[in-house]
């Protein structure tokens, strides 16, 4: 905990706060200004079926008759104090709506991440130990294959094989253990690919280091080398990658929930999109940004403590660090 670290932490914290505030503003701009006037677009849309009195009531309740900047200011300050507003449709607080469906999405996202981690380690382990003739190359192609399959297709294939053909779970009970299990697999597979790619690249890099050669020359077995020496330095950058995949976990659960018929944040977003329930969308998207920023902030703050080789930037001799710049020997994470 030296002063360089404290300065770094303070700077990152400040950045995180700025990004969260700007993300809220950007979402506000996209959600309520781009489509023109939300009153005419949403409320007076004949499909919505609001009467004139209801429209007047909603306009008054949401304060839609005020200037846009005033609306933004009051909604942002409410957001900062934890008030997420009132749904335009169900007239219930958005926080309650989100609170009702959050546990289901958290369970799905956590188990999806677990599946992704297990799969990634298995694949990375396999690429080091599977002999070439037993398909090591094939295994190395797995991440690329996983990234090419839409996750709703994985979900549908799992439902078709394990739900309909084998009858392991019933589609009408989306919250049962097996249904959740297969939903987590559908969500986890594309994410495992990203983690596995970074893990494999780092394992390859670490295996070329001198310390690995020394360990090998001392007669260490392959499995011991992997477990005792290579895995730890290679998995450090994975911390950053996991933090970066949080966004994809959230986006992916939107689709996975639809495919498996689960109720969750995803189904809430879908319902709000089809009914143009702007306060709900605004809240969900900005909360997603908050989660993403906070998780990445934690990852960035923890990383220098985990890996003493990481030198903190931001000092006068700063030099640009690029995504593929690996000359310092410090593994950097892929940011895409």
């Amino acid at each position, binding site marked *: 905990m030296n002063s360089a670290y404290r300065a770094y932490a303070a700077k990152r914290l400040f*950045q995180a706060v*700025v*990004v*969260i505030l*700007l*993300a809220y503003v*950007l*979402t506000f701009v*996209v*959600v309520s200004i*781009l*489509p023109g006037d939300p009153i005419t677009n949403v409320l007076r849309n004949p499909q919505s079926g609001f009467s004139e009195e209801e429209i007047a009531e909603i306009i008054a309740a949401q304060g839609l008759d005020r200037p846009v900047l005033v609306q933004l200011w009051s909604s942002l300050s409410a957001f900062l104090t934890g008030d997420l507003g009132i749904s335009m449709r169900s007239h219930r607080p958005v926080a309650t709506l989100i609170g009702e469906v959050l546990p289901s999405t958290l369970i799905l996202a956590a188990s999806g991440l677990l599946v992704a981690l297990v799969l990634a380690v298995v694949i990375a382990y396999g690429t080091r130990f599977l002999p070439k003739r037993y398909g090591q190359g094939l295994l190395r192609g797995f991440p*690329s*294959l996983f*990234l*090419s*399959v*839409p*996750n*709703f*297709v994985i979900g*549908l*294939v799992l*439902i*078709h094989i394990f739900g*309909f053909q084998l009858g392991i779970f019933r589609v009408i009970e989306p919250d049962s253990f097996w249904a959740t299990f297969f939903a987590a697999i559908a969500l986890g597979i594309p994410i495992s690919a990203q983690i596995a790619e970074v893990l494999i690249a780092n394992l390859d890099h670490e295996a070329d280091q001198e310390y690995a050669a020394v360990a090998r020359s001392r007669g260490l077995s392959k499995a011991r080398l992997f477990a005792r020496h290579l895995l730890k330095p290679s998995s450090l950058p994975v911390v950053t990658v996991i933090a970066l995949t*949080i*966004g*994809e976990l*959230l*986006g*992916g659960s*939107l*689709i996975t929930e*639809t*495919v498996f018929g689960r109720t969750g944040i995803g189904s809430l*977003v*879908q319902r709000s*999109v089809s009914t*143009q329930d702007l306060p709900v*969308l605004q809240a*969900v*998207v900005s909360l*997603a*940004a908050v989660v*993403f*920023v906070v998780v990445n902030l934690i990852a960035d703050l923890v990383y220098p403590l985990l890996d003493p080789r990481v030198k903190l930037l931001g000092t006068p001799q700063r030099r*640009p*660090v*690029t*995504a*593929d*710049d690996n000359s310092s020997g410090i593994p950097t994470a892929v*940011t*895409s």
Partner: protein
Amino acid sequence: MTFATYNSTRLSFWSRLTSDRLPFTVALSFLIVAMAIAWSLAPGLFTSHDPVNGVPAHKLLGPSLQYWFGTDHLGRDLYTRVVYGTASSVSSALIAVLIGVFAGGLIGLLSGFLGGWVDTTLARLVDVLLAIPKFLLAVIVVTAIGFDTTNAAIATGVSAVAVFARVMRSEVIKTRQATFVEAAYLAGGSRWHILWRHVLPNASRSVLPLAVLHFGDSILVIASLAFLGYGDPPPASDWGLLISIGKDYLKWPWLVYAPAFVTIATVLSVNRISRWLRKTD
């Protein structure tokens, strides 16, 4: 020295393509992508069935010589629907990539080349775009501008801007510090001349594989948006929409598997080409 890189890149792309050491999988990938492009340019050449009007008596038939991918619940040939859906699935992905490359590239170029407060401001904007989950961003943008396939493509492009901006910025910074750029300054080159003739061509080299990679990614995101019903409504036959319709007929699994297979084959090929471009560069 590095001056020659710009000209030799383009030459080497074609020589790489025509060299006899082209790996088999890469050749196959090019073939599949060429097929998809041909389908989208002239779908009528590849099938004699009607994509919109089916033969009700032939509904839900399995794959056969007459109907390669089987038929759907209205007796329409699924292969024909996939072929006709290619145009919007592939061209919309192209729109998305172009938006990402141009908007993201411009942001990255300005931010990396000008530095200072421009860089700080644009970097914050990119951070904000990265903070909102990509798919969620695409969903709210398409909600804001209306549900159809072109808008889904625009939304997908917007959600990709940040990644291109980041890569472009780091490449520009790297190039700006190269000796030949310094030499160009000393030789009296103006800022914009150097930006245009030296920095941009060299920095965009690594954007090409990324653009190809994002082309595959965009096909997936647009298919996901179509799957959720945010693209053109039926009788359009975007791949994602076909899979979405097929999921209600899981007793006739080819309705899901056939369009899914085409999607996966195309994206896998695009990704393979991107990897090969990155490796041989």
